[in-house]
Every structure is written in C-alpha cells, then in structure tokens.
C-alpha cells in the first residue's frame, strides 16, 4: 500500500488561513447586507428627502435637463424604477404610459421613470419600443434607488402633493386600473 509509505500530511497553515478568511469575509459581507435589508424599503408615511433625477434628452421637463422632487410640490408624483434588462418591467410599460396619458393634461400628476443600472442605448431602445413619453432619466450612481432602498425592479412609489410617500408597489402593475385607483386615493 502506498498509504503507509507516504507520510500523512494535514492542510498547511496558510491554506487554512485562506479558507477561514474567505468564509469569514463571505459571512461578514452577507451579514452587513442582511442588516441593511432588514431595514426594508422606505415606508408609507415617510417624508421623502429631495433628490435630483437627470433626464434623457427628449424627455426634458419644461426645458430643464434635470428635475428635483421639490419641483413637483403640490403635484402627485409616481416614481417608477425600471431597467431595459428587466422582463417584468415590460409587463407594465404599456399600462404606465396609458395611465400617464390619462393624467398628463390635468397637471396634477407627474410620472417619473428612474432607469436603474442600465446603459443608455438599451434604455432609449426600451423607451422607444414601448412608446413611453413621461419624464425619464438614469438613476446616476443608484443614488435614488438607495434613497428608497429598493429591492429590485420594477418598483413604483406614490408620493403625495406634500412629498409624503403613501403607497409602494413592488413588482409590475397588471392593469391600468390598478395604477389609477392608487392615484385616485390622493388626488385632490
């Protein structure tokens, strides 16, 4: 037997150190993220701090190339997080646009699309494909999505005219009625 002739050797110390360091790093990483996730998304009733959304060209708001949430005080804001790579987003794209068309002329409701972790050519192709006309721009550096602590796309936040969040929709809308009924709750 070869086994008796070769000396039995354990795992060398540095390999052990590497393994344990790897496990520890992994657990710390997951632990920190878990802790972050436990806070959940922003809750209805929270006052939303101001943020700035740069807009894609062709999607400007009154000639401005970026908008602040505070620009819309007095209006109801529907903030939709989406991405061109997100399949469930496609499910609701037409519905969002249709709902926007219903309120566009009233001037009481604003739809904002925040494009989450995306590239501009794909995002533009997506907007064109679904004929989206409401204000849209990239969520630069994921600053806005972190402000809302979103967990994925699509997610939609309904902010009342006073800047207070009153409804959160995680996942795609399945009908225009679903969107309008949430808006009608707070429409003055």
């Amino acid at each position: 037997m070869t086994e008796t002739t070769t000396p039995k050797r354990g795992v060398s110390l540095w390999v052990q150190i590497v393994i344990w360091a790897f496990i520890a790093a992994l657990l710390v990483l997951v632990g920190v993220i878990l802790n972050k996730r436990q806070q959940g998304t922003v809750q209805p009733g929270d006052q939303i701090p101001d943020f700035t959304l740069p807009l894609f060209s062709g999607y400007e708001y009154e000639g401005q190339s970026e908008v602040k949430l505070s620009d819309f005080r007095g209006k109801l804001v529907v903030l939709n997080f989406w991405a061109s790579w997100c399949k469930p987003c496609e499910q609701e794209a037409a519905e969002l646009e249709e709902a926007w068309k219903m309120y566009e002329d009233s001037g009481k409701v604003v739809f904002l699309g925040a494009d989450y972790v995306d590239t501009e050519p794909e995002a533009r192709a997506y907007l064109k494909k679904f004929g989206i006309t409401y204000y849209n721009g990239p969520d630069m550096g994921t600053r806005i999505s972190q402000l809302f602590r979103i967990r994925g796309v699509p997610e939609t936040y309904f902010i009342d005219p006073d800047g207070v969040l009153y409804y959160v929709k995680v996942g795609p809308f399945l009908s225009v009625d679903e969107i309008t009924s949430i808006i009608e709750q707070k429409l003055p």
Partner: protein
Amino acid sequence: MLAEFGYGVLLVSFVVTIYSGIAAFYGVRSKSSALVESARRAQLLTFPLITISSLTLIYLLINNHFEVSFVYEVTSRSMPTYLKVTAWWGGQAGSLVFWSWLLAVFTSAVTLRKWDRDAEFLPWVIVVSSITLTFFLGMIVVFENPFTRFWLVNGNVEPSMFKPAASATIFTPNDGQGLNPLLRHPGMIIHPPMLYLGFVAYVIPYAFAMAALITGRTDDRWTRITRRWSLWAWLFLSLGLVLGGRWAYDVLGWGGYWGWDPVEIAAFMPWLTGTALLHSVMIQEKRGMLKHWNMILVILTYSLVIFGTFLTRSGVLSSVHSFANSPIGPFFMGFVTLTLVSSIALLIKRWPELKSETEMKSMLSREALFLLNNLLFMSILVVCFWGVISPLISELLTNQKITVGPPYYERATGPLFAGLLFLMAVAPLSAWGHSTVQTLGRALWKSALAAVIVTVILFVTYTQNFYALLGFFLVALILFATGHEFWRGARARQKAQNENFFVALGRLMGRNHRRYGGYIIHISMALMAIGILGIEIFQTETQGTVAAGEALNLGDYTVEYRELASWDSPGEGVNYTRAVVDIYENGVYLGQLYPRIDYYFDSQQNMTIPGQRSTLRDDLYILLVDWQPVSSIGATFKIYVNPLVNWLWLGSITFLLGLIFAAWPERDPADEAVRRKVTRDNRQASAAD
C-alpha cells in the same frame, strides 16, 4: 382550537427533535446503546408528529379558516380544493413546515432501514439531521408560525398566536387573498415540492459524510450507502429546475425558460456540485481516488442548498421569486455559519486520512476525464457564485448597486457548457486506469466523422451561424458516440450469448443500470442542448397592433386577427378575454390559435395565456398584449417564433426516464442466482413429468 392544536404538536416535535439530537450525541459518546436507541425512537416520532401538524394546517386551508393569517394570505373561497392543499407549500411559513416534514420523512426512512449494518454512522446521522430539523422547526415556532390568527383588539386587527388581551376576539376576514394567479399552473404546483425534495434529500448524503468524518471511517462506505440518495436528490432537483423552466415558458409571457435570476441560480448551484458529485463518487468507488474531493463536493452541495435558501428567503437577494420581507434572516444566518464552520473544521481535521489509494496514471483515462468534468462544473459554479455575490460586494464597497444580467452568465458559461458536451461524448469511451490518444481515437473516429457529416449538412441546409454549428456538432458527437456504445455492447453480448440483438441490448442495460441510465441522461442532455441552441440563437419576435382582418408577419408565418370576445365566469371568479387568430405558413392555412388574458377578481391580477403551436421544428407563440375594450376593433399581439425549443422538453422527458432507469434498484446478484436455480429446477422437474 385547531390552530392551537397544530401549533402545540409543532412545539412537541420541536422538543422531541432537540432531545433526539442530544440523546444521540451523548449516547454515542458514552457508548450507551440504550440512549442511542432512545434517540432513534424520538427521531422516529418526529415524522408522525409533523404529519399531524401538517394535516391540521391542510384542514384549515381546505375549510377556509381565514382567521388563520397564513390561510388568509394564500387561499380564497373561489380556489379549487387541490389548489388549497398545495397552498401548504405556497407561502413561506407553510413551505417551512413542508420542508421539516420532508426532513422527518427522510431521516426516518434512513433510521428505519439497515440500522444494524450502519450502526456506527447512524447515531451521528441522527445528530446532524436533528440539528437541521431543530433549526427549521425553531424558525417556524418562533418566527414563521403558520397557525398565527387574527385578533380584534380595541378595534384593531393584529396577528397573534394566543389571545393578546382579555377583551380580544378572533377576527375572521370574509375571504382570503388567494394564490397569485401566476402560480396556478400545474408546473408551479409541482415545481416547488420537487425542488424541496431535492434540497432536503441532500441532507442525507451530507449527514453520512459528516458521520464518516466524525467516526474516522473515511473509506467509501458513506458513498456506497448514500449513492442512491444522491441520485434521487439529484433527480428531484433536476425535475424542479425543468418544471420551473416549463412554467416560466408557459406563464411568464416572454417565451423564455431561464432568466439567470438569483433564485434560479441559487437552485442551480447545488445542482452543479451535485452533478459533479455523481460523477466523482464513481472514481472513489472504482479507483479509491478523490476522497477529499467527494467530501468537499457533498459539503458544498449541502451548504449551497442552505446558503441559497438563506439568500433568497431573507431578502438579501432580490428577485421575481422573492418571499415577503421576513424576520428569519439573522437566525438563518446563524445556521449557515454553523454549517459552514463545522463542516470545514471537520474536513480539515480529517484531511490527512482521506488519502488516495492510487495515483492518476494517464491524462486521458476515465478518471482524468471525470476530473476534468468536475473542474468544468466547478468553473460554472464559480461564475454563478460570483454573479450572485459581486453585486453585494460592490454595494458594500462602493455603495453602488451593480447587477449582472443574463449576458454575463451566457458569455462566461457558454464555453464551459460546450466543454461539458465534448466530455460527455468522449469520456464514456475512455477506459479506467489507462487510455491513450490511439485507443480513444479508435473508439471515437466513426462517431466524429458522422458528426462532421451532419454538421456539413446543417451548414448547407439550415444555418451558417458558427456557434450554432459548433453546438450541433457536439450534440451529434454525443448522440453518435453514445449510440455507438449501446450498439457495441449489445453486439458483443449478442455474439457471446447467441441472443437476439434486442434481447442482448435489454439484458446488457439491465445488468448495469447506473451506466446505461447515465448514457440515456447524456443523450437527453444533448437533446436539451438542441432546444437551448434553438431558442438562444434563433428566436425571433415581433409586436404590433392590428384591426380585425389585418395580419402580422414573422418569418414564414402570418398571423391574421379574426375576432375577440370577453366574458365573465363568476363561478371561477375569472374574466376571460380571448382572441381568435388564423395562422398561415407561406400562405398555407394551418389552423386557429386562441391567445387570451384571464383576469382574477379576487387578486385583481391578469394572467396571459399564450396561443401556442408546437412542432419539433419550432414553437409559434402568440401573446395577447392589449385590446380596445369598447369597440374591440384593434388588438395588440406579441409573437415569438422559438425554433427547436420542443427538443428541450423532449430532452427533459428522456432525462426523467434515464434517471428513473439509473436509480431503479438492480437485482441482488445472490438473489438472482437463487431465482435462476429455482427456475432450472422447475424446468427439470417438469421435463421429468
């Protein structure tokens, strides 16, 4: 009353499980067989206890006990009874009960059978599975109690297990929220329990591996005992993945079957290591090599099951599969840590004793190619793991979220999958111990030539896409090489035993289930690869709004919109909107399809049911996206042509057959000898008459 009963039984099983684990531990440490026996009996008790609790839950589900919050969340009055039963595993709390129940079933099955034979391992197996079960039951009892009820306290409704205040009364909602209609699909009803079966069944090989490490019996005993468990676990896991794909294809409405979603990857990672394990275990049995490696694989598989479940259930990873925000995170995290640290510590401790008995002699031998196969599986695992973990790292370090999408996975794993296909064709032809380029070349050249001819034909008649041709070449190589193996084996037996060819083939396969079942699985993988190549490379789509009588074109197909009708079905609580379209191919009428949208009143959700025309050549897949409700003049359709996709489902069925064949118990040789002798004696007796 019933809710308290169900919860009480769960509490009792929790305590019994803890006792079982502790008694087994001290029993084996103090060599007290009485204590070990007591632990075993306690363990056996968990199965009926959790069964009773589960039956209570199912009773509550079937009988619309909406005062129980879990029942309220996952069922509604309009749901048929079978869906109410399956709601058992449809929500987080219930699925944890289901999981615990499976664990109790499997552990009982192990401890009931062959106790004497495996007496040295089994106490430790009980310890390991009791710890796992304690954890899951603990999670249910403390955090995710499916028996929690609604109480009316001072005009507010709050969920609680027991009466929260003296004045509190039970609150019963009129109707439940109902199951998400997307999940009311046969594939979705079977998909989760199959995955859970697969996940939980891996506890058994893991527990035996731990027992082997603890007791120091590091020969191949544990792999022999758990071989069939690994195979069945793998079967269920594979089935779960395939059914999930089928569900996505039918229901999600984008003609896809696999989206590289974090939850999909979490289920796919243990499958990768499980597949590698199935192969490398054979090397340990045949050649006494790779003992370390098998231990690593079994630990990895089980850890990935637990880790993946944790990541997706605690909300660390977001996905379309996400469960509601849940408090189980930190508790689960503790269990993940315990599993990883204790397994690795044990493995490091026993590392020197897991030495190979033989050395690798040839880089082309069967064992070398198996090792290569393992490395490829591991590489795919690393790609997947990085895809799942890197967004977390970047979120932590740069405070920016970066997600990796399907293109990353497709680019990184594509060549690795191609390598696996190549090995699938070549490795079965190489010999254990020693193979050379010459021996391998002799075995392979005919198949390779045939595959080249097929590829050339495809190049001329079907496609000039390089990746598609490469894929089809590898598929053809597998089919020819594996077919050749069947043919050669049967011919040899035909000559030696003077049997009819088909009898010889049948007996040949019957003598080595694992080997020929494995070959059938290889063939099925090749068939599935055809479907995947088809949909990934050749899928085409179009979208458009048309009035009645107008048509949309895609490739050779013309889809003409005829009419649309919308009606309520109050009994089912659904509104149906159904379009009728005529299908033509190059002007030839093929028939009608009926894409529709079902609207569920209780959950206010739409469900898109595609009109589908399936052939082996392609799937025409038509979705009704939108319509004009008042005039029903126009309707919007999305149309996909998914070439070859049905080979994927055909391959899945072949795969299932191959697996069942491989896992089917072979006749015990001793048994067989006795049986044969009896028939011969009978024959002599009847000849004497």
